[in-house]
């Protein structure tokens, strides 16, 4: 019997409101003149990575950034549409840091660490100030002040936005701060580089191996700390709203070097995406949650309904969210909205040719506010919808359905954002800490930037100063680097050598179907066991029959994909295993066996009020499920109700 470890989140003592301030005072500092002697590697240049790299460089650290795209500006944070939360209370509608904290903890179904969430709510206001100072063109009122709108899971308007392109504008703000440092020669930006190995020397993360995706060269980079800002693993499902190159490989390499992986089963299925329309489909496109401010969700009452949406009279429509959740209505949290859409489709009440969709209708809003107002609010989203579906949402209701969007799970980190490998930190979606079992809308941008601008600059300094790394330089000539490089090269050579008969994408699709069917919106013990067996079989088949064309040198996109899919085939199994062992429902993790009489998620707080942190024990060996107990001192655990 393996021993289960109890992890310490290193939450500082004291009152919740004082923890972060006190911790900042207690942490060690690095002398300004010494900062340039420390090398920091930042992998990924989305909101978390770009903001961390820029800020650490401003402080004086010697920073290098790495991204797989051709420019740091392309990271997938750019696709976030709706907004970023902060408790500024500008609308004077009753918001406060405590309320933002409370909504986020409750929205996450009481599976996040209290102290982390409170800190997030505290620094959120600084994010808005920082971004405004950078020239982010936030939406404004006529008096020149900032505008707010409301989002799911909250009854106040606390979401700041830049049309339907908030992620783009915040990322371009962070990117411009990063490029400012690049221009000054203080940050080295490496593009089209994929991290293929984490290098650990004497138990500490001391560098990475990268593969240059243009030349196929492997390169060694040493450092005093490695920050993984590499996003989530939603692409395990093949079809998701993630970008094509978004992957879980960097986190997975860290996992195999000792970083524990927390709550991998917590995935967010976003309620409002454009439904799938064909087998050739490569990705799903999200329609911002902000649409639920004005759009009304409905299905026909009669499951044999054949009329077009506009021909169905009012009394024959079922506005099921408004009916079931009168106080939050169409603005219930994402997991609740998604699950209800699935229930309607399962009852046969879905719409469109596939019957796997529900309507999101703007007719009332257009009547009430006028078409110009709706156009100003959502014009770009309506245009995108029309381009993809060839239907005009100003005239007919949108058809929407849930799709994989975000992963709340990720590398386990302590309060300082450090993984279980000293010196290896995880920021943004790559970590697990702030959203519990369900993330609220407009909170991902908030967390990515909080981690990068306002948390890591303090906690990294404390680590570097405490470890005395200044006297222990590790060079790229250390044997650990050669070994790691050799391991990576052998892996890529092996993928090329298989020369089987099936394409990489065909395996990825196969995995995606298993994940969606068994590790999707509703899970059962039986289904999850089936998933584990099936994924193992696909993985075996992959390593025997995958066909990767081309060579290891030069551009080889199939080879890049094969490397990522090989990792998804392991990560998917861990997700299923985590879902199987979490015998409760919470947030986005819904087990059919654990539901209330009203079909809501039923938590088992006595047994599962903890984080599951998985420890790697070797390929094809069962990982160990360690835990971190979650202690709630400031909020009472209740059955979430949005009625």
């Amino acid at each position, binding site marked *: 019997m393996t021993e289960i470890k109890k992890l310490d989140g290193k939450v500082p003592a004291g009152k919740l409101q004082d923890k972060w301030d006190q911790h900042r005072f207690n942490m060690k500092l690095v002398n300004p003149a010494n900062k340039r002697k420390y090398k920091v590697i930042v992998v990924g240049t989305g909101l978390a990575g770009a903001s961390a790299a820029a800020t650490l460089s401003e402080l004086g650290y010697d920073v290098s950034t790495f991204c797989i795209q051709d420019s740091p500006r392309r990271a997938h944070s750019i*696709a976030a549409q709706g907004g970023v939360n902060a408790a500024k209370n500008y609308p004077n509608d009753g918001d406060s840091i405590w309320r933002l904290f409370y909504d986020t903890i409750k929205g996450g179904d009481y599976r996040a660490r209290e102290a982390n969430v409170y800190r997030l709510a505290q620094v959120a206001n600084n994010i808005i100030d920082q971004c405004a100072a950078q020239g982010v063109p936030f939406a404004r009122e006529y008096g*020149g002040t*900032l505008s707010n709108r409301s989002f799911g899971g909250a009854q106040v308007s606390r979401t700041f936005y830049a049309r339907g392109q908030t992620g783009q504008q915040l990322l371009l703000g962070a990117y411009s701060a990063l490029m400012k440092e690049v221009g000054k020669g203080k940050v080295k930006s490496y593009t089209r580089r994929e991290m293929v190995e984490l290098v650990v020397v004497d138990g500490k993360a001391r560098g990475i191996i990268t593969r240059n995706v243009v030349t196929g060269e492997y390169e060694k980079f040493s450092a005093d700390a490695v920050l993984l800002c590499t996003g989530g693993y939603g692409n395990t499902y093949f079809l998701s709203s993630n970008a094509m190159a978004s992957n879980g490989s960097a986190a997975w390499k860290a996992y195999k070097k000792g970083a524990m992986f927390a709550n991998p089963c917590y995935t967010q299925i976003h309620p409002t995406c454009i439904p799938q329309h064909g087998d050739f489909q490569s990705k799903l496109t999200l329609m911002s949650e902000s649409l639920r401010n004005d759009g009304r969700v409905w299905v026909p009452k009669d499951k044999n309904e054949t009329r077009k949406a506009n021909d169905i009279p009012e009394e024959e429509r079922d506005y099921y969210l408004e009916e079931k959740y009168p106080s939050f209505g169409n603005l219930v949290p994402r997991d609740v909205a998604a699950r209800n859409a699935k229930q309607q489709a399962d009852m046969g009440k879905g719409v469109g040719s596939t019957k796997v969709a529900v309507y999101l209708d703007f007719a009332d809003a257009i009547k009430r506010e006028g078409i110009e107002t709706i156009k100003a609010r959502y014009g770009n989203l309506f245009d995108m919808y029309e381009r993809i579906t060839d239907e005009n949402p100003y005239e007919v209701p949108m058809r929407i359905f849930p799709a994989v969007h975000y992963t709340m799970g990720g590398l386990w980190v302590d309060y300082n954002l450090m993984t279980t490998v000293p010196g290896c930190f995880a920021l943004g979606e790559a970590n697990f800490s702030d959203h519990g079992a369900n993330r609220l809308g407009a909170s991902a941008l908030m967390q990515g930037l909080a981690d990068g601008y306002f948390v890591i600059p303090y906690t990294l300094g404390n680590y570097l100063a405490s470890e005395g790394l200044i006297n222990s330089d590790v060079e790229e000539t250390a044997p650990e680097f050669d070994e790691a490089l050799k391991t990576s090269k052998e892996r890529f050579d092996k993928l090329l050598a298989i020369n089987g008969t099936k*394409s990489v994408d065909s395996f990825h699709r196969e995995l995606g179907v298993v994940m969606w069917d068994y590790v999707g919106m509703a899970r059962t013990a039986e289904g999850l066991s089936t998933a584990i067996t099936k994924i193992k079989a696909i993985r075996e088949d992959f390593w025997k029959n995958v066909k990767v064309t081309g060579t290891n040198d030069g551009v080889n996109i199939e080879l890049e994909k094969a490397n990522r899919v090989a990792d998804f085939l392991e990560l998917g199994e861990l997700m299923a295993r985590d879902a199987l062992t979490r015998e409760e429902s919470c947030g986005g993790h819904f087990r059919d066996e654990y539901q209330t009489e009203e079909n809501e998620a039923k938590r088992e707080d006595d047994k599962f009020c903890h984080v599951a942190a998985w420890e790697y024990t070797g390929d094809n060996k069962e990982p160990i499920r360690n835990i971190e107990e979650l202690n709630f001192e400031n909020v009472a655990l209740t059955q979430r109700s949005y009625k």
Partner: protein
Amino acid sequence: MSSDNLLTLNLKIWRQKNNKEKGEIVDYTIDGISPDASFLEMLDVLNEKLIAEGNDPVAFDHDCREGICGMCSLMINGQAHGPEAETTTCQLHMRKFQNGETIVVEPFRARAFPVLKDLMIDRTAFDDIIASGGFVNVNTGNAQDANSILVPKENAELAMDAAACIGCGACVASCKNASAMLFVSAKVSQLSLLPQGQLEAEERVKNMVSKMDELGFGNCTNEAECEASCPKGISISNIARMNRDFLSAAVKAKD
């Protein structure tokens, strides 16, 4: 979508092994394409076919596939991002093409955007331009309350119009001079329209324009092809605004 709507297409695609070797147009025929597929999904189908035959798939840049990351490019029948106005290649759908049509697919071409392989190009020159001044010089932690900087709504909207640039390079590819004026002016405009960008406005425009020249982008001769091809509808009025800023900065130059 019923199967009788499926498209058969003749593709003429630029193939180039790497940056050093010469490229050429290669012909492919592909059938069974759904009109609901995106242009890139059509290329995915072609690549699956090429892989099955043991051939090298066509390399092309893409990532978000929802028109915002700016990674996708492609000259489609001589038009940057293809025939549909204000649409990136990834958002272009095959219903815009006819059954049996011949489609020519080439990379964005410009001296400053060397081809890496097939349809993949190097656009690091855009990063270099931003690094030369496309920012407000404010370090993290210095910001005052966001509402203490008031921005007239009209300026905020114009700044947002300019900031919508996705940095894809269509403006450069469609310009006969391979000028980057629309790209540069979008960033200059965004920041000069906002109070936050005022302090460094003159330095910014001078530095960015001189970096653009240094990197081998051409001059603007007011053809407006850039505006016509921009997938985000960035207006050439930004170029006029930048020219004003540039002139004023040049006149006031201290040396």
